[in-house]
Every structure is written in C-alpha cells, then in structure tokens.
C-alpha cells in the first residue's frame, strides 16, 4: 500500500485509530514511562516510610497497598509494556516488514492495557483501598480484600488478554513476514528474544487468568479451590500462580537480553560472539523457566523429592545464563569500544544483572533459602535483576533507538549524567537490602527493629536519588523529541541490522517493498 501523502490524522483521532506499528510502539513506550513514574512514586512512598524505624507517614494497611500496587504497576505497567513498545517499533524494522501482521489487533491490545490500568489504579479510591495482599495475591489473605478485589481481577484479565494478543502478533509477524533471505538464524537477537518471549506469554498468561478466576469464584461463588474447609488448599494457588509467575519474570528479562545483544556489538564494532549459542541459550532459559516454579515456595512444606528437583533445576538456569554473559564479554574482547549512553547502560546491565544472578543462585540452594525466603535478600535479588537488569536494558534501548524514532541526536552529556546518577543510586538503593535480609529483616513490613535502621536509611536515600535522576531521563527524551542535531540513517559508528538502512526519523511507512537480505 503506497504512502498516502497526507500523513496520519491529526490530534487525538490519530492515537485512537492508528494501526501503524511505530505509532502503537510510541503509545506503549509513553504509557510505560508514565507507569514507571507512577510505580516509582509508590516506591518512594514505601522508602520514605522505611527511612526510619517507627511509623511516620502511612498506616500499615496502606503500606501493604503501596507494596502490592508498586509491583503490579511496575511489572504489568512499566516493564512489560516497554518491551512490547520496543517490539512494536523494532521488529518490523529489523525483519524488513511493512508493519506487524495484525495491525488492528495491535491497536486493540494497547487500548485494553490502558483501560486495565485505569481500572487497577482506581482501586486506590475504592472503599477498603487497593489490593494489599502482595502482587502475588495469595489466598486466604487476598480473600479479605474489599471492593477492589473484583476490579483488580478484571484488570488482570484485561492485561492478560492484551499480552496474549500482542504475543500472537509477534509470532505471526516474525514467522511470516521476514524479508526474503532472512532465515531464522539470521534474525537479529532482539527479534529472536521476542519470538521466544511471545511463546512464553501464550503459554502462561492463561494459567494466571485461570488462577485469579479461581480466586474470584472462591470469593463470590462459594467454591473451595483454596479453602481447606471445602477440601481445597491455599498452596494450590501458589503452584498455579508461580507456574505463571516464574516464566513471567523471564518474559520480562528475555527482551532485555535481546536488547543487550544488539547494543554491545554496535559499540564494540564487531558482531556478537557466538550467535547460535546465544539463540540456544535463550531457548534453554525459556524451557527451564517452566520447571522451576516451586523455588518460590520452598517453605510451604514440600516433600523432600520436590525440594531437590526444584533446587537442581533452578541451579541449572545459571548455565545458559552464564553462557550469555560470557558471550557478551567476548563480544567486547578484541573489539573497539566506545561508551555512549546505550553502551553505558548495557555494560551496567552486564555487571549488575550478574550480581542479581549470583543472589539468585544462592537462593536456589534450599537449606540457605530457608533463611533468605521472605526477607529483604529476596527483595534485593529481584530488584537487581529487574532494575539494573530489565529497566537498564530498556533505557539502553531508548538511548539506542531514540535517534531512529525522532530523527534527532539527544543531549549526550545530560544522558551520561542520567546514567551515572542512576547507576550509583541504584546500588545505594538495593545493595544494602542484601545485608538487611541476611541480618533478619522480613519483607513487606512498614516498620522494623532498630538494628536495621542504618541500611534502611541508606537504601531510602538511594531511592530518592534514583527517583530524582529519572527526571533527567524524561527531560532528555522530551528535549530530543522537540529537536536536536540531525541523525543520520546509521546513527552510530558501526550500525548493524535493517533498521539502520531506513532514514532517521523512520518514515511513517517503511519497507513497503521488502528489502533483499544476504
């Protein structure tokens, strides 16, 4: 279909009716940035309360609402939509396709998500407040929720539907619409990562939907799935949830792996080392992610054989993950490195995600997990893999592709300030939490015994520093959208991939005729 010449419609109509992957990608990214700030504000509320022992700012019940909603917003509103936004923008460009395979479903996926979040965030205003049982929604506690409960469940169903449809779109696009000559083993690693992530999404989002529906029927229709009185078991929910929940965390990190695999080669000026190994590693991680879920539940009273199986399977994940880390390092080896903002974030990812990986390996060991479980050690681990892990990769991707999207180079100096402030404060924020967990501080508590004061204070200072630094990020982006030095098609010194063959900014319609790939 040829370019219409009159461009997209103006104003709000454009954003309500567009089926263009670039527009939809932009909407997802803007949405995720707003959600990141929203979830961030909740985190600041948490860390402000935890700045000192004693309860100064919030009631314990509201504190639990903050921790619950912070997680739900960050997982389902910030990280996942950001990776979906990047997928929408970049997959068609990387494979030489004119758009995603199912553009109208693509638009529907986005607006479903927006509605879902209006619903979820509105629960703060309902009697009884937002859900306060932790983002994991364990029964029986979650069944003590008030009016927010059905809204939260409905919101989750909408988010799930949005994700599943998005995943279908990604798979159909990559399988069917690659340019001639682009075999699967020539697919860029970001697209590979998303192809596998999409399968994970389709496999597990329905399980989550089933689990929360069982919560709904236990709450309203007197079923007893999770109620011992009727022959059920609360632990059943945990199995169902974590069967979804573990692949879910890989859904969040695999696209990040893909991003890092794009960026490190560019700024090392040589191709990724071990392309095939990287593909097999991602596929192995995805497969293993299905058989480790009970490592989130080691303390429920599991038979010895179960504990041993899940311990060993979880430890195994370290192997393909290690392969990736070694391959990224070797990509830099005998390269020619420069340290623009995308590379800075990618390298910080490499270091800091690895730290998160080590704490994860320690947690896999069941006897020691009996001491770590439900403490700040766990909180430290997952924040390391998610914040300097997934979030840094997303920021790296934004700094990498922003010139392609906008046609302008951004303020490099400001971006570097953003990087350094973020990298330093993120460690001040989360590293002390390892010590807190080991010293005995449980998680999800609004107040603590006085020996935990010092580390909590440092962590809270880190949180505020980190939060403020993100304002720089927003400013860099806004400034870049408004103007800046013209970006070339290639943008960087050593671009690789089809996306760098189109002009910057990428025209509204690209690859209407498929390119030749060699």
């Amino acid at each position: 279909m040829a370019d219409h010449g009159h461009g997209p419609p103006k104003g709000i109509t454009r954003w309500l009716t567009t089926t263009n992957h670039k527009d939809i990608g932009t909407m997802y990214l803007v949405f995720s940035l707003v959600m990141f700030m929203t979830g961030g504000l909740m985190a600041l509320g948490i860390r402000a309360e935890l700045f000192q022992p004693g309860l100064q700012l919030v009631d314990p019940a509201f504190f639990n609402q903050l921790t619950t909603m912070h997680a739900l917003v960050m997982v389902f509103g910030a990280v996942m939509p950001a990776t979906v936004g990047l997928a929408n923008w970049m997959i068609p460009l990387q494979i030489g396709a004119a758009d995603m395979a199912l553009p109208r479903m693509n638009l529907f996926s986005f607006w479903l998500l927006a509605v879902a979040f209006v619903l979820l965030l509105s629960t703060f205003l309902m009697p009884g407040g937002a859900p306060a049982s932790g983002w994991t929604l364990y029964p029986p506690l979650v069944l003590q929720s008030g009016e927010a409960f059905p809204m939260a469940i409905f919101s989750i169903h909408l988010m799930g539907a949005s994700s599943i449809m998005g995943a279908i779109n990604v798979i159909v696009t990559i399988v069917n619409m690659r340019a001639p000559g682009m075999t699967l083993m020539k697919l860029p690693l970001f697209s590979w990562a998303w192809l596998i992530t999409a399968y994970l999404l389709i496999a597990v989002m329905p399980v989550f939907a089933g689990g929360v529906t069982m919560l709904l029927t236990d709450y309203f229709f007197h079923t007893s799935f999770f109620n011992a009185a009727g022959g059920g078991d609360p632990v059943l929910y945990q199995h169902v949830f974590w069967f979804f929940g573990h692949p879910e965390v890989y859904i969040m990190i695999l696209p990040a792996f893909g991003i890092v695999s794009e960026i490190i080669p560019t700024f090392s000026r040589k191709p990724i080392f071990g392309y095939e190994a990287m593909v097999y590693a991602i596929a192995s991680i995805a497969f293993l992610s299905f058989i480790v879920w009970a490592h989130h539940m080691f303390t429920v009273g599991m038979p010895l054989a179960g504990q041993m199986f899940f311990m060993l399977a979880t430890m195994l994940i370290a192997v393909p993950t290690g392969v990736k880390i070694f391959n990224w390092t070797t990509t830099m080896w005998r390269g020619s490195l420069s340290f623009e903002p995308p590379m800075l974030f990618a390298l910080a990812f490499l270091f800091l995600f690895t730290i998160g990986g080590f704490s994860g390996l320690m947690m896999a060991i069941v006897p020691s997990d009996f001491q770590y479980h439900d403490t700040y050690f766990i909180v430290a681990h997952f924040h390391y893999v998610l914040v300097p892990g997934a979030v840094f990769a997303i920021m790296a991707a934004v700094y990498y592709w922003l010139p392609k999207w906008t046609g302008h180079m951004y303020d490099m100096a400001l971006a570097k300030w953003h990087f350094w402030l973020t990298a330093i404060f993120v460690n001040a924020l989360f590293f002390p939490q390892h010590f807190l967990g080991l010293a005995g501080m449980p998680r999800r508590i609004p107040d603590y015994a006085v020996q935990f004061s010092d580390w909590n204070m440092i962590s809270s200072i880190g949180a505020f520093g980190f939060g403020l630094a993100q304002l720089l990020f927003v400013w860099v982006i806004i400034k870049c959208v408004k103007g800046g030095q013209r970006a070339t098609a290639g943008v960087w010194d050593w671009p690789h991939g089809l996306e760098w063959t189109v002009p910057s900014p990428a025209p509204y319609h690209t690859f209407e005729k498929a390119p030749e790939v060699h």
Partner: protein
Amino acid sequence: MSGQNAKSNRGLTARLLLMVAGSFAFGFALVPLYEVFCEVTGIGSRDRLSRMAEYDGAATAQPRTIVVEFTASVPDGGRWEFTPVESSMEVRTGQLYEAYYRAKNLSGRDVTGQAVPSVAPMRATKYFVKTECFCFTPQQFTRDEERDMAVRFVVDRDLPPGIDRLTLSYAFYDVGRVAGGTT
C-alpha cells in the same frame, strides 16, 4: 475477496468454532474425568476418602512402635470446643486403633461441622489409613450438644523407617445450618 478465499475462510471459521465448542465441552467433561483420574492414579480420590477404607494388610515390613499424636484446631472464629480426648498414643504399625475427639457446639444454635484432616509429616499421609472417621461426613450438632467422635486407623507397616512420630490434626469448620447439610 475471491471465491476461494471466502471458501477457505468459511472452513477456518467452522474449525475454530468447533474448537471453541470442544473446549467448552471439555470443561464440562472434566467433572467425571476428575473421578477417573483419581481412580487411575489413586491420588486423594473423593470416593476413597468418603468410603469406609478397608485395610487389607498387604504390607511387607516388620511391625514397629511409633507415637501418634492428636491435635485439633477451630479456625477462623468457629464456635466450637474441639479437642482430642488423648493427646498421643503408642501405636504398633499394622494394628487397628481407635481414638476420640470431643466436640461441643458453642454457637447457640443447631449447626453442622466438618473436620478436615491433615497429617505431619506429609509423606506419612498415605500410610495413615483411616478405616472409619468422623471426617468423612458432615457432623450435625444440636444447640449446646457435646459428643465424642471416633477415628479408627491403622498405620501401615510400610511406613518409612525415618518416621518415629506422626501427628494427626483436624481443623473443625462450621459449614452451615443443619437444614442444608454441607454448603
């Protein structure tokens, strides 16, 4: 749309609708299928638990003596007094024993209770065979009624050697007024 496209679209639509109908039917079929699954695997069959279990004594290990403890809970504000008559007994594996729990209705009206059993360690559960148990059926109590309820059990001789003490616990729940029986 060409005629061939329209035809293949119709065929696809028909197959997709069939899949939807089939999935829905599968959901309904799961009710009897669940019973079949339990029969075949022997896992916690509803039928097995509610039937008087016949202990057939097919175990091979030598009998030994262990301690069986009895404990009781009344969760979630239920208005019962519910205690084991004896808190523990020495038990020879392979032999039939009888233990009692005493329950009193404190709710001020006629009410039905249901006991939910649990055994620790969990792996002892399948070796703790209840041939008769008040936990199999809802128990109706008139206002202020107090009575003893029996559980007859055998600890299978094949109980793993590492277990020298096991605990039978009941949680007693209020399942509604007498007229309805179970909820």
